[in-house]
């Protein structure tokens, strides 16, 4: 237990997503439109914490386990984060 409720904040969350959309129609008068989108989620690979744990010991780099021994233990704070830079491709098709 570390203090009053709601007295701590996660670090600032920020990321940059970029998308390039390629229209595949040459003729805009057609009954349908379709396009290809290339995206990169979190372009600069920011490690945004998803949640933080206070109950584990560091065994080695990026290997954390809950201690069994209640006498000799040394907790460290660990964070989980999801994807860093993640590319994606999508195809959109719609009727006019």
């Amino acid at each position, binding site marked *: *237990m*570390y*203090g*009053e409720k709601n*007295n*701590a*904040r996660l*670090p600032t969350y920020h990321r940059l997503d970029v998308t390039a959309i390629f229209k595949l129609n040459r003729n805009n008068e057609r009954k349908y439109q379709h396009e290809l989108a290339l995206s990169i989620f979190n372009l600069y690979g920011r*490690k945004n*914490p*998803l*949640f*933080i*744990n*206070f*109950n*584990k*010991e*560091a*065994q080695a*780099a*990026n290997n*954390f*386990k*809950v*201690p*069994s*021994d*209640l*006498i*000799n233990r*040394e*907790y*460290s*704070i*660990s*964070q*989980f*984060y*999801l*994807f860093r830079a*993640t590319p994606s491709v999508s195809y959109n098709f719609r009727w006019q």
Partner: protein
Amino acid sequence: MKPWRYFLILLLLLACEERFNDPLNTRPTNLLVVEAVLTNELVPQKINLSFPYQQLNGAPTPATGAVVQVVENDAVIYSFYENILQPGEYISAPFRAVFGEEYKLEIQIQGKEYYATDSSVPVEPLTPLQYKMVNNQFELVLYETGTISNYIDHTITSEDNSGCMPCLGRVIFYDLKSIDVNEIYKPGKKSFLFPAGSTIIRRKYSVSASYRTYLRSMLSETEWRGGIFDVDRANVATNLSTGATGFFAVSTVISDTTVVE
């Protein structure tokens, strides 16, 4: 399944855990933390009172100067006195907290009063201690037994520190007879190994229904936190009156001692 589908599933599950280095921003609080387990053993009973930790690996601030007593069935009063060698620890004269009686804890501190009540339930017999050899040392094999909720406290002492100052280690195995998804998918535990010649003192505690609720909520915030499926963070259950946390429990205890050879 085609390889790209494995890749897609991998992407969906991908998460990394690493050390978090930002400092904790804490503020002192006067929330009283009560750690009290009375047992059926004829020994001086102990109650610890403290205020929350300010640092992750720090020590709790002891709550000193309290008036503490336990009342059995609204008739017999057991007074607790503060241990001058260990501030925050309150000790009674030897007495048993027995099955079938109701016990009420009363605390007065800093102009406030706190109350809690509990009764013990029976405990099932201990089953044989099991351990296995790992790299020329030993590791406990912990397993569920019986039908009633309980936990077993293993105090492990080596030949070198038979006075248990400090003990070699202490391992608690909780057997709450519940099906919790966050327990099933709890994070991995570090192995605790001990050498041949170690002495293991087991103490098996019975767990009443309200104590079980407390232990489940406490474990959900501690040992079971950080796995694949966590429950929402929440206050730990308590049987103490408003303004305090922790638990006042009355347990039936049985114990045995084993020397590992």
